[in-house]
């Protein structure tokens, strides 16, 4: 029996409906709310056009939040990528104890963000934390890592990098393991040193994988919220307030759904722009 085109459409209709209800509807709602003065504390719900966006973009908080998000994304994306690449390059040629190393190195991946946050908050703790014990051993002054505006962002970003490195490692490792052995052997026959092999053969070949891993990591980091919220709640002051933290604070601590939705939309738009930019570069 021949199935007609419209019948195919019928088959995908249930999935489409689910998508519309659970994905499209909330997205449309958030866009709609972002044009409202909608506060469930002030009991307002009126259309105000772009006023929420103008208010956000003109605020000092936006500049601070944009800067914080940039630092947070930079460290949390590049550091794990670098660590993962180095680890993958050192281990892709299997050695004795390879499985144990891979297992141990991937361990942080099994933690949920809230556990990671609590673990690292304890590590950074002033009276008890491991990090300050290390500072003692090195005869360096103790720091209150999460209460110092200049250290808080790097500190939480490092915790996030620790959490994100294993996934990047496994993906880059898979990329390395899928490389053509013929090309690698040919470079060895031509007398390439290890470093030349890495620099001129492996890295160019694995570059698309690294780019993809970086992009996925970046998208994950830019919208991540739990870790930073649990560790610092965006403080001290606004020193570690990133875009998602600001969105949460406005929406669920100030109960201003209108301006909170506008923060959310800005977050989505920035993520989209960065993603499209990187994807286009990848195509080039």
């Amino acid at each position, binding site marked *: 029996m021949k199935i007609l085109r419209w019948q195919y459409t019928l088959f995908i209709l249930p999935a489409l409906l689910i998508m519309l209800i659970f994905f499209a509807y909330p997205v449309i709602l958030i866009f709609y709310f972002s044009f409202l003065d909608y506060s469930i*504390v002030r009991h307002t719900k009126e259309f105000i056009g772009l006023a929420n966006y103008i208010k956000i973009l003109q605020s000092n908080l936006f500049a601070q939040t944009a800067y914080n998000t940039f630092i947070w994304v930079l460290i949390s994306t590049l550091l794990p990528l670098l660590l993962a690449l180095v680890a993958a390059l050192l281990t892709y040629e299997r050695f004795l104890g390879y499985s144990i190393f891979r297992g141990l190195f991937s361990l942080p991946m099994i933690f949920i963000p809230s556990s990671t946050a609590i673990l690292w908050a304890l590590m950074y703790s002033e*009276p008890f934390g491991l990090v300050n014990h290390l500072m003692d051993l090195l005869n360096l002054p103790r720091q209150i890592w999460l209460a110092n505006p200049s250290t808080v962002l790097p500190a939480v970003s490092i915790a996030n990098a620790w959490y994100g490195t294993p996934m990047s490692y496994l993906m880059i490792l898979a990329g390395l393991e899928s490389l053509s052995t013929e090309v690698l052997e040919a470079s060895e026959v031509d007398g390439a040193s290890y470093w030349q092999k890495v620099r001129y053969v492996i890295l160019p070949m694995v570059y698309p994988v690294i780019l993809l891993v970086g992009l996925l990591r970046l998208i994950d980091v830019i919208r991540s919220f739990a870790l930073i919220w649990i560790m610092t709640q965006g403080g001290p002051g606004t*020193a570690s307030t990133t875009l998602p933290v600001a969105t949460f604070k406005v929406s669920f601590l100030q109960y201003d759904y209108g301006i909170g939705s506008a923060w959310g939309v800005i977050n989505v738009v920035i993520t989209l722009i960065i993603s499209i930019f990187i994807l286009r570069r990848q195509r080039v």
Partner: protein
Amino acid sequence: MIIWILLLILLILSLLDVASAQRITISVTNRKGWRCTEGIKANLPKFEEATGIKVNWIDIPPGELTAKTLAELEAKTGAFDVIMASAEFDLAAYYPYLLPLDKYIIKKWGSVANFRKLISAQAAKAAVWEGKTYYIPFHGNAQFLIYRRALFEDPKERSAFKEKFGYELPAPPKTLKELIDVAVFFTRPDKNLWGLGIPLGGKYPQHFLEHVMLGAGIDVIDLNTGKPDFATGLKYRRAIEIASFLNDLVNKYKVIPPGAKTMGHVEMREIWKLGQLAMAFSWWGDHWDVLNSPEFVKAVGPVGSAPLPQWPGSPPSRRGGRMSIWSLGIVNTCKNPDAAWKFIEWFISEENLETEAKTSGAASHWIEVDKKSAEKGFLAKGLVESLPYSIPPRLGFVKQGPQLITAFIEEAQSMVVGASTPKQMVDKLLARFNEILK
């Protein structure tokens, strides 16, 4: 035959199901893990057995309680019948979604005036919105000072203090100067002993500043004008002095453990247990039983308590600083308001409120119950002496409360970590308040 037996079983089961469906169920919110209501929760089966009303006790993490409650109320989902509300700003936010309780109050106590005489004046004020009564209080607390009695009574410490400062070691300190002297005296970083523990992580610096400001006669927001009352003159100068006081405790006198900048009051309680503090200031009413538990007393000796010394030249009627009020209200979409009221009546029974005092050390705002709890030694002296002379935060009574509180927390945190001076903090706070209230 077998079919008939099966049909009979089915019939019995369905009848049972109908019976249970006909049983009234009410859903009640609760701050998850809150020590003050744990004892009352344990008494729930008694209520269910006596009334036949089933209670769906919904534990919500403290940080999510207001957001979840408000979201459900706004969406009119009917998920909650009885809600818990704090004077921090829930009262102002929730009441449009609640049922006025005046008819129930009149039925139980004869008149609203009679009911108001039974509870503290501040709780009575906080219960009424636009002329109607929406809230029934069940919990009251205030921040106060605790101190290690054994340390303060130690003859060696007493003579060393007198030698250094020229007067007897006050137990407890009664003025701010004495407080600083005592804190400085006991601060011995080499021995990991600190003079004064104040939690300074998250919202706590704001709680401290607001406590001292309210005690000093600064309302922060004038409820008559809807504007900050510390923008000019004496109150402006006093606000800066109060901010400087906290700043000096942290950065000049260095009497507070450095790690306090990331701590809440539970962490501070653990530092207390480790014997690293001579005095500590926070919401100890929620932890009084723990502080007096054999485990704690064995570790650091008996605990004394007192109100934090008041800012000099301030009205004595405000010497208790900032209070908390937690109340119950009935949601206006509730299908069984009579059952919900029965639950509230039970919740605020003398037995339950005494249980609350006994299992945590918190007061209730019910005058007679609190009096008895104090007599039985369930409440700290610091709380008993602070609560009647304290007021709830004014920020909670204006509709922009959540924005104002967020701004206050952020600016207070920034000052504590040295990102702004006390004057800058007050000026920034005023600027942000004016912007929010515009």
